[in-house]
């Protein structure tokens, strides 16, 4: 017996969430409709509310409730440094360290020719335009230490070269608390190449 159409639609919509297959989506849908209808109502309202109020910051593209996000509008932030991240979650991870006081720019993805993700799919043209109008002293590329992160970093370095801005990349190497014998060769190689004077 097929599910009623609205239930089937809900199951399909829940499957857009990362890591949710059809079985998990069914369990979620039944949980909400059978056992927790008030929570289902709150969830629907929360989703609509967030959709309505959260958009991209017009300066750094992160998610914000305002036109310009809290960090971009903070006069106390260092406006000579711009840190490039792939996603708002990466930005929040860096913010949580409390070590960086500059500004950010969120690409919303990383270059991946194999997946068909091109510079135009990311916010790279907007980034170049921003730097043309608001130059900085240093661009810090904080993309992931993956093939896609490396490709994005290299592409950015080339795209920003005509602007004459200093472009740096986050250091890569042995994790804190890590033991050398357990670190893979690629990471150790990077750690060696990026060693610092004591």
């Amino acid at each position, binding site marked *: 017996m097929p599910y009623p159409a609205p239930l089937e639609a809900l199951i399909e919509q829940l499957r857009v969430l*990362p*890591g949710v*297959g059809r079985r998990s989506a069914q369990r979620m849908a039944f949980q909400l409709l059978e056992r927790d209808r008030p929570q289902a109502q709150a969830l629907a309202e929360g989703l609509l509310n967030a959709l309505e109020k959260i958009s991209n910051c017009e300066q750094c593209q992160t998610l914000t409730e305002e036109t310009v996000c809290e960090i971009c509008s903070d006069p106390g932030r260092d406006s000579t440094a711009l840190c490039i991240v792939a996603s708002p979650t990466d930005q929040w991870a860096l913010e949580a360290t409390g070590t960086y006081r500059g500004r950010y720019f969120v690409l919303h993805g990383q*270059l991946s*020719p*194999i*997946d*068909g993700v*091109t510079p135009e799919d990311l916010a790279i043209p907007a980034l170049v335009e921003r730097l043309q109008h608001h130059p900085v002293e240093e661009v810090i590329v904080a993309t992931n230490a*993956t*093939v896609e992160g*490396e*490709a994005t970093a*290299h*592409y950015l370095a080339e795209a920003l070269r005509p602007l004459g801005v200093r472009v740096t990349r986050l250091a890569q190497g042995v994790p804190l608390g890590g033991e050398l014998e357990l670190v*893979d*060769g*690629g990471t150790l*190689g990077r750690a060696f190449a990026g060693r610092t004077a004591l």
Partner: protein
Amino acid sequence: MASPWTPAYVLHQRPFRDQSVVLELLTQDGGRLGAVYHRGRGRKAPPLAFVPGEWQLAGRGDLRTAYDFQSGPGQPLTGQALFAGLYLNELLLRLFPREAPVEGLFEAYGEALDALRLAPLAEPVVLRRFEWACLEALGLAFSLTEDGGGQALRPGDAYRFEPGVGLLAAAPGQGWAGAELLALAEGDFSTPALRHLARALFAAALAPALGGRPLQGARFLSDPDGGLG
């Protein structure tokens, strides 16, 4: 009993469920394989593309389970060589289906990666040699010393390419010079004209297998005209 270690390169990985990735592997004996690797808490991240490794794989069918690996020597590609490597990977993913072993492809891929590490400026030649290795693996290679009718190429004549046939005499004033095709047959890529010829010729030969869709990675090569974009 532990399964044997399978030499393989990771060509691509994409997230799968919350804590897993689907790996596209190029194995030494089994051709391309798909495998799920669970990277839960405390488990090491899978090696980056371009680093040789050995994998313990379980299961059969379209998607194996990868449950352990050891990285071999070799650094990930960086800078411009990385984009050339991604072009190779896209070629492999587009041209070869999973579960279809191809003799010699694993070795040709490893040699291409080594060449890119050692001499990134030789990128166009490395890419052309690998495209030719792909043509051979697909059974689409053709003679560069004889035409489709079995006649030896003449240096002074001009030739065109016909898929499934090979080189054929071209109309006067058109096609590629026999002398250049014969130089290419000797592995001579020394001039821009020869490299341009190789790119156009191999592009024409690979086009049917690529189904008319350009390779996305071509635009990121050091010579944007240097790939099958």
